[in-house]
């Protein structure tokens, strides 16, 4: 599907559009969402129209905003209003930080014993977690009552795995504004963020870009690369290492991705559901725009988050060659779609996360918690940020459901989608 060109059309520069362009608000309630769906003329549309924006919508958008809409695929960072509304998302009012833990318990993501154990460890200063207090002495504005900052020993002596956070905090709070100015002046994108490494011992040293497995991890979509892979050594096993995860996969000639757990008994993997084996459809998927990689200032932000979480994780587990649940900053591209029942595999979009925490036993290719980093405070960009995050949530749900379905070995010919076995029939969350 071609993008509609035009004088001054933002559609010709998809990566320069803001997420949710043309959107006046993020709906807080179903009523607001329904009103917006009707306003944008989506009442009779279906999920298969997620990438479709017809002339009527272009006309409407010109009338009601300063934006012009285009047709064609998009990524989460430049999702159009119509596509955002199509995923049926509402954001109830923001709750205070104190409500987060009780909500996680209520939703079933945690139990009381988990939170009490964490409280005990934190406030008892066990397992070196007292170093967190030492960190807060240095970077937080609220002083610890009647306790002077300790100045004996080095930064690393006092803070252990939290030591680097002092420097990162300094970057974020004091130097970030000037870094952003410099970046705007020089170039919007100085360089790409680091990508997940290939395990070179397993034959991945021909470059991450040409590996079907890296396509799975990052969904990098060079069509020529993909074709070359499909005609290459299909028996060659490639592996990628990821903190807490180590997966070996065998590329399939009929699909972009396939692994041993996908086999449904007849030698055909279920992954054809995700990536169509029809060449034209596959080409359409391959043409999906990749989300813009994060910039240097966003890397500083995600470094803080990853270092903070990884420091906690490494303090509470014994020495091991493969520590688990350690946060990482790997950008991972998630894909929503292609939507079932459509003839066009292009009914899909991609979203890029800035990292995550791989929880559990490490069997999943997906992190349990995903990160998103922005170098600037939200300010007036809340609609755009939430629209982008909505699409990341949706893509994550899609990938999780696909993964669960493969693991459950549900037949690819099932007439109706069956819920993953590990998802409650009532309310589910991640």
């Amino acid at each position, binding site marked *: 599907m071609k993008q509609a060109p035009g004088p001054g059309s933002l559609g010709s520069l998809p990566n320069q559009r803001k997420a949710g362009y043309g959107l006046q608000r993020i709906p807080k309630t179903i009523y607001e969402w329904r009103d917006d769906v009707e306003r944008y003329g989506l*009442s009779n549309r*279906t999920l298969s129209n997620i990438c479709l924006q017809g002339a009527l919508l272009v006309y409407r958008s010109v009338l009601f905003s300063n934006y012009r809409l285009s047709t064609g695929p998009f990524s989460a960072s430049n999702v159009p209003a119509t596509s955002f509304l199509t995923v*049926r998302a509402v*954001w109830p009012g923001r709750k205070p930080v104190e409500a987060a833990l009780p909500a996680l318990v209520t939703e079933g993501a945690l139990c009381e014993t988990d*939170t009490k154990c964490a409280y005990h460890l934190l406030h008892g200063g066990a397992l070196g977690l007292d170093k*967190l207090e030492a960190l807060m002495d240095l970077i937080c504005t609220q002083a610890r009552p009647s306790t002077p900052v300790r100045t004996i020993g080095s930064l690393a002596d006092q803070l252990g795995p939290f030591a680097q956070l002092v420097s990162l905090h300094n970057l974020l709070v004091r130097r970030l504004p000037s870094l952003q100015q410099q970046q705007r002046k020089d170039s919007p994108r100085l360089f790409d963020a680091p990508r997940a490494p290939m395990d070179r011992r397993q034959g991945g040293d021909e470059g991450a870009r040409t590996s079907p497995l890296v396509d799975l991890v990052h969904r990098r979509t060079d069509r020529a690369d993909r074709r070359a892979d499909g005609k290459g050594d299909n028996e060659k096993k490639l592996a990628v290492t990821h903190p807490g995860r180590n997966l070996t996969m065998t590329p399939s000639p009929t699909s972009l991705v396939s692994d041993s757990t996908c086999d449904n008994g007849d030698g055909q993997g279920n992954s054809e559901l995700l990536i169509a084996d029809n060449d034209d459809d596959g080409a359409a998927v391959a043409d999906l725009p990749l989300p813009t990689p994060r910039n240097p200032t966003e890397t500083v932000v*995600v470094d803080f988050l990853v270092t903070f979480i990884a420091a906690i994780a490494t303090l509470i587990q014994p020495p091991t060659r493969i520590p*688990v649940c350690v946060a990482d900053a790997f950008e991972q591209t998630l894909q929503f779609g292609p939507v079932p029942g459509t003839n066009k595999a292009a009914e899909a979009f991609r979203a890029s996360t800035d990292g995550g925490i791989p929880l559990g036993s490490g069997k999943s290719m997906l992190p349990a918690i995903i990160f998103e980093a922005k170098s600037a405070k939200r300010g007036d960009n809340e609609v755009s940020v939430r629209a982008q995050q909505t699409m990341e949530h949706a893509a994550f749900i899609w990938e999780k459901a696909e993964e669960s379905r493969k693991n459950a070995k549900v037949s690819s010919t099932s007439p109706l989608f069956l819920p993953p076995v590990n998802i409650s029939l009532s309310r589910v969350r991640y």
Partner: protein
Amino acid sequence: MIAQDADEVFISIGSYTEAYLKYLFNPAPAAVLPPVAVADDVAAAAAHMLRIQEFSPFKISTRDHLRLLAHVILSLLVKELVTLRAGTMIRPVWLEIDSSEDESDG
């Protein structure tokens, strides 16, 4: 999802139901507007929606917020680690709290 915008951290939890998954994966694509929403049945329509609840902002320069963020993250890690071999260091604490809760319940 954990999002950080400069020096502020946002936690958002996405909740959805089987009905929402059916909307995504049904081979016959359903209408964007579910009939129950047209019929003003908000409770029924909620089952067909993705609900994203945000808790924020955790300011990383504010001691109480950073400690609370650490508490949330540590709780999530405890939940995962306690059942794994890597959880040997925290398991005694967890079991002690769990048993004391059982006694108080009894």
